[in-house]
């Protein structure tokens, strides 16, 4: 969704040139070549893929743990254990201790995973659909629709995303639903641009011109020929988008503007840590959540990296 999560890949297609607002001479497709021996290239690719596999394993593990949360802990995430009390250190009953209200931290970490994953996938699903439709419309209808859409996306991208999201979540009232809706409604610009860009490239290609000449209807061209080509980059964008959405949700909840207690979210598990006491003497309350967020985002980023390399092997081609 943002520049931060799309590093390394520099401008090898017109679509991404559009994204980065750098003009590229028409028709020129720069190829990044590296002076490496074939063996080294294979090793490098494998290494990359290995990281991606690790990422997949980790994310799957987190998803399974989130789904099976009730089996992995006897405590409901909002249940206050009056026997043990608040701010207690880890013990056999509470493997990560209890939080400031007396709830089990491990349970809240587990159910917090649900929050993050639901927001991540939910918001991305929403903006993938919106972005694709709008991008298709812009690329297809061209001229005014296209220019209008470009200016619209420029507008949304001009305002820092966190700021925009904070404001609109506040308007709707902080909750998991409003977070999903707002991230979804504000996250489509990059998707739309990508889709539009790919569409423009493909539109000029001879293959499509031929189909046109034959008389294949537009709709068929769109869905049968263009969409499959877009799927690849879209998946990459979606994956990085999930990472960004998870970071956004945890930031919002940390600030108290997203998912609020008593609902559990990794972000709001860390809110208390601004107090020096909690920061230093009650690490079991916030460190697990911090690690969880980082691990999840890291793994998703690895997956995204791997996918990107997989769908566009040009980057590792010999020069």
């Amino acid at each position: 969704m943002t520049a931060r999560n799309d590093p390394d890949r520099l401008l090898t297609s017109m679509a991404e040139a559009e994204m980065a607002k750098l003009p590229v001479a028409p028709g020129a497709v720069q190829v990044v070549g590296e002076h490496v021996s074939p063996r080294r290239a294979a090793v490098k690719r494998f290494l990359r893929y290995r990281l991606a596999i690790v990422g997949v394993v980790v994310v799957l593990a987190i998803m399974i743990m989130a789904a099976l949360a009730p089996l992995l802990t006897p405590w409901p995430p909002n249940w206050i254990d009056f026997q043990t009390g608040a701010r207690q250190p880890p013990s056999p009953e509470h493997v990560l201790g209890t939080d400031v209200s007396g709830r089990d931290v491990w349970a809240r970490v587990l159910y917090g995973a649900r929050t993050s994953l639901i927001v991540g996938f939910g918001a991305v699903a929403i903006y993938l659909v919106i972005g694709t439709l709008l991008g298709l419309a812009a690329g297809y209808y061209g001229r005014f629709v296209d220019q209008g859409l470009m200016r619209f996306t420029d507008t949304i991208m001009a305002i820092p995303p966190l700021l925009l999201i904070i404001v609109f979540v506040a308007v709707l009232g902080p909750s998991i639903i409003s977070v999903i809706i707002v991230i979804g409604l504000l996250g489509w610009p990059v998707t739309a641009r990508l889709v539009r860009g790919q569409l423009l490239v493909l539109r000029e290609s001879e293959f499509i011109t031929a189909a046109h000449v034959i008389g294949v209807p537009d709709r068929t061209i769109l869905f049968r020929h263009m969409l499959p080509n877009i799927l690849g980059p879209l998946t990459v964008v979606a994956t990085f988008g999930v990472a960004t959405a998870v970071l956004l949700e945890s930031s919002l909840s940390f600030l108290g503007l997203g998912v609020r207690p008593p609902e559990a979210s990794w972000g709001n598990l860390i809110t208390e840590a601004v107090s020096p006491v909690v920061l230093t003497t009650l690490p079991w309350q916030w460190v697990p959540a911090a690690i969880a967020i980082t691990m999840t985002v890291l793994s998703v980023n690895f997956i995204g990296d791997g996918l990107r390399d997989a769908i566009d092997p040009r980057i590792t081609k010999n020069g």
Partner: protein
Amino acid sequence: MGAYILRRILISIPVLIGITIIGFIALKLTPGDPLLTSVNPEALANMMTHPEVLEAERRRLGFDQPVFPHQYLRWLANVVQGDLGYSISSHRPIVAEIGARLPQTLLLMIVSLTLAVLIGVPIGIITAVRQYSKLDYGLNAAAILLASTPVFVFALIAIYVFAVNLHWLPTGQLHTVGRNDALDLAHHLILPAAVLAIINAAPLVRYTRASMLEVLNAEYVTTARAKGLSNRLVIVRHAFRNGLIPVITIVALLIPEAVAGAVITEQIFAWNGMGQLAVKAAGARDPSMMMGIILITGVAVLTANIIADIGYAIADPRVAYDRAK
């Protein structure tokens, strides 16, 4: 060149209008009496006891008219004249509230972005030049780890290590209580600026690296090497200049992201800037404050982008002569 600049500015106008529309939407969607945010609280206090005066005021301000375009245009006219309304929490004009905090945020952003460039770009160059070395992998891993760590986690760890444990730096705020001098401010600036700088340096490292790699492997570099120029000269004279051009654009792209990071950083370090104001406004659901912040930030980012575009055109004159897509 002049035409290019003019074109960039012209393209920005619809974006500017779009930003005002978004701000206006934020203002209108938040529940609450619009009178509270539009009228001077002192004047309003006088009117509160007379409902018919309140009604007349509502009519005078056009709140009975359709939202688009009438109310929007009136509101826009006010904004252009500098009237952004009043905050429901502090009863003071928004312009005053934002104005009081804008310098602090600017200071933080400028210092941290400069530091980010100073850290990120050299490291990116180094890793490109020393590709495949252990250093390359190590720094790359650090960069991707930093990009995956939430800003607030990083900030909390930094506070834990440098402020709470080592006592080298203060835990936050603009000044030590009772002091007002620049040296004290600088002391308090170090940690938040460093946190933001390091977080923003991570993507810069990777972009610079990729850009430099691309250039280093380009044909004219091979040619230069073949001519016998020393590696150093090659890097400095050719690769450098060309490889750094995209970096300017990436820095411009980073600015919205950096502002977002600043929001969280300001909150954690109790840095009295616009980011903290935004969080407070959102918490209190203060509509005109949120609108004002969107407007000002959007305009600032737009301006920064235009400046970056101009800088880019200066660095690479080809840009100015390309037909914009």
